[in-house]
């Protein structure tokens, strides 16, 4: 089971991958909005990627932080 595609290279295409979204974290509790694109500004709490698999199965969240 997969989400997204490695050959996606445009915002319009990214929007169609509804299972893959990014959240710009103000702090660890930030959950919205879910963006189809990377945030365009620095995110104080890091960037969370959310992968929505078919809802009865799973979604998973991954927290990314650029450390410098």
């Amino acid at each position, binding site marked *: 089971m*997969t*989400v*997204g*595609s*490695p050959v*996606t290279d445009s915002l319009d295409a990214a929007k169609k991958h509804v299972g893959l979204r990014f959240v710009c974290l103000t702090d*660890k509790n930030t959950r919205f909005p879910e963006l189809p694109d990377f945030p365009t500004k620095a995110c104080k709490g890091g960037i969370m990627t959310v992968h929505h698999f078919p809802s009865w199965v*799973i979604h998973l969240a*991954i927290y*990314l932080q650029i450390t410098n």
Partner: protein
Amino acid sequence: MKSLALALALALAGVSQGALRFGCSTVSIQRLDPLVEPGNIPSAHVHQIVGGNAFNATMSGDIGEQGTCTTCTFSEDFSNYWTAVMYFKHPNGTYKRVPIMQNAALPNGINGGMTIYYTQQDFNSNGNQKITAFKPVSCNDQFGHTKLITIGISYDGWKSRN
């Protein structure tokens, strides 16, 4: 007592909610993807992998029977979950792998991993399909191959902002 138990069961049936959340730390970072590119060593790109120790370039059968330990907090399940790794492109052209931080909402010691949610539809509705945990599922990969895996997750993000 029996009737009380039945009444309670009936009451619960109307409001049942199924959801599971747990943290997993990194088990490995490798160019392997047994779901999208089974057998390819290396796969086309790097993945961060969490979960059981049966992860391999090729995976088949019931992974739960093959693993003996896991980096996830529920030791009863040896599923693997993996994602593409994100890189920062430096202005000088070099790439640096972006580290993954701990989910601060989960217990200490879960470093650089993922938070896995199993839900029916969302946390507060009963959903429209039954949830089945920890059983092998038949999975169609993107090439239409059907295979039996515990639950393997592969994610490929889109390349980058241009």
